[in-house]
């Protein structure tokens, strides 16, 4: 939407560059202006969150600096300590649960994807093509369509309202397998594997010592994707967890928000929601910023094919 009017501007801009032999600042100013508009659109909401997490409950409504600037009272640390005491510090428990689910689900899904991707890419076995075709179809099955039958299945085996109800279904990542297969095919040459076999290495050892090191970039990408998916998960835990102590931070904060919207004074914890939201996004945002090198190439692996 932002893009439409400005793109006509781009139309004119590069033409100017040609006439003035490429050194002129004109076109680059146009592109940079567009870029700044885009960046502002993506950043202002986050800036709002940073500012909001430093305000008290009343400061959020009547802050002296308006919604996009700091209030006179800087209560970030009070908010943090209130997060630690409100409902016996359940917020930190939620955050811990999110870590537990995201790490076990994400690491588990990645291990399964790496193994299966390698199996699909480097072995010919009966049923391989059929299974892989089925898997490609599964990439297109909307996972939320599975939540209700998964709930019924899990309650049938008594796992509802346990951590396994979130972790076990998170191990499924058809897209991860697809990525790993594509990547393995390119990155691990058949000759290399044959050479290892001739040298007497077993299949497992060939996989661990020859193939695995070559797969590192793809492994990091799949790990990031699976961790983000599990960390993001909302529908599944919302359906399968009842005990407040088991909730991940996403469902927990949503509950607080629902209560604050519906409830009276004492239940309105807006400052805890904003501070809680801010703290909860830090781990993933920071790991994306530090792991740039990996995901920037890796996220596109599947689409380049």
């Amino acid at each position, binding site marked *: *939407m932002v893009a439409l009017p400005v793109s006509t501007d781009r139309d004119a*801009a*590069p033409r100017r560059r040609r006439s003035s032999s490429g050194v002129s600042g004109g076109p*680059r100013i146009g*592109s*940079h202006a567009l*870029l*700044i508009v*885009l*960046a502002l659109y*993506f*950043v202002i*909401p986050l800036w709002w969150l940073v500012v909001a997490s430093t305000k008290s409950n009343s400061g*959020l*409504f009547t802050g002296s600096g*308006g*919604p996009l600037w700091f209030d006179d009272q800087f209560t970030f640390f009070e908010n943090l300590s209130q997060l630690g005491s409100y409902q016996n510090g359940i917020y930190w428990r939620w955050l811990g649960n999110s870590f537990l689910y995201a790490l076990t689900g994400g690491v588990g899904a990645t291990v*399964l994807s790496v*193994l*299966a991707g390698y*199996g699909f890419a480097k*072995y*010919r*076995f009966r049923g*391989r093509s059929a*299974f892989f075709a089925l898997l490609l*179809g*599964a990439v*297109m*099955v*909307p*996972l939320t369509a*599975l*939540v*209700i*039958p*998964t709930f*019924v*299945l899990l309650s049938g085996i008594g796992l509802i309202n346990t951590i396994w109800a979130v972790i076990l279904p998170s*191990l*499924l990542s058809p897209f991860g397998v697809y990525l790993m297969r594509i990547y393995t*095919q390119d990155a691990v040459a058949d000759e290399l594997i044959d050479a290892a076999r001739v040298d007497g290495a077993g299949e497992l050892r060939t996989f661990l010592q020859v193939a695995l090191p070559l797969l590192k970039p793809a492994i990091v990408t799949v790990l990031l994707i699976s961790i983000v998916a599990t*960390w993001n998960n*909302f*529908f599944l835990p919302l*359906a399968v967890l009842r005990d407040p102590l088991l909730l991940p931070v*996403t469902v927990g*904060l*949503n509950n607080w*928000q629902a209560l604050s*919207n519906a409830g009276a004074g004492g239940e309105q914890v807006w400052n805890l929601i904003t501070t809680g*939201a801010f703290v909860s*996004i830090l781990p993933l945002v920071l790991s*994306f910023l530090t792991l*740039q090198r990996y*995901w920037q190439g890796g996220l*596109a692996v599947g*689409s*380049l*094919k």
Partner: protein
Amino acid sequence: MTTITRADAAAPPQPRRIRSASSSADRRRQWWGWAFVAPFAIVFVTFLIVPLVLAFIMSLQTSTLAAGTTFTGLDNYVKAFTDPLFLEGVGRVLMFAVVMIPAQLIVAAVAALVLDSLATRLAKLSRLLIFVPYAIPIVIGAIMWGFLYSPRFGPAATLFDLFGLDAPNFLGQDTVFFSLVNIVTWQWSGYYMVIIYAALRSIDSQVYEAARIDGANGWQIATRIKLPMISSSMVMVVVFALIGTLQFFTEPLVLRGVAQGAIPVSYTPNMYAFTLAFSYSQFNYASTIAFALGVVVFIGSYLFLFLTRKQSGLK
């Protein structure tokens, strides 16, 4: 790359000799192939195949307190496809698909094209900033936008005041649709931008040189060369966005609390199925809706891939 593998497979006599000489090694290798795939296969069957089959079976049954569970064939499907609440929800997510997917695609493609043409530090920084929302859970993003839309907390009043305007009500019956489109665009465009940007980077820049010598300007290079060359990534992005849009759930559910009355519980098919299952315990009918939705999404994305097989190179 496919050509390489194919050439390998068809490589002359040598491999055949090895295979016939050691068919037991071959059989062992088959076994190893399955061993590597097996852990995933177990999860795949347990949490994908079994739930799908279960959903289908449940959708063919009806439970009542009086009669217990009985087999009712396609009755639930007849009920679903004549249920105005379900049909409205389907119509609504289709509308979302029509508005939201182009919006995301345009923002992502424009951002990627601009970033591709610049190599400054500002461009690098912007690329990161545009991507950051992807790292934020959808619920948190929706909660945040709920605050921003709110007339009590949000900056809208202040911003519109600058231009002497009254802030619109973002959470009204008519406007909430676009407010939701905005949340999704904000959250996902950066991810799609990264995919498109990576595809742009993989184009050999000599192509641009050639075009420039032939007298093409920047706009022509972008629309006639860059975009067609990355069409397979665009197809991929549209499929991802389509699958996501048709199962729209989290954002409207979160905004429901803020936008009093503007979002009914049956706003999208997924919300409707969730409500039927967990508020009314109608698991059979909810399974019908989930399964019908799954089939619609599957056919929809499959059809799209089929129609665009030329662009995506999946022939």
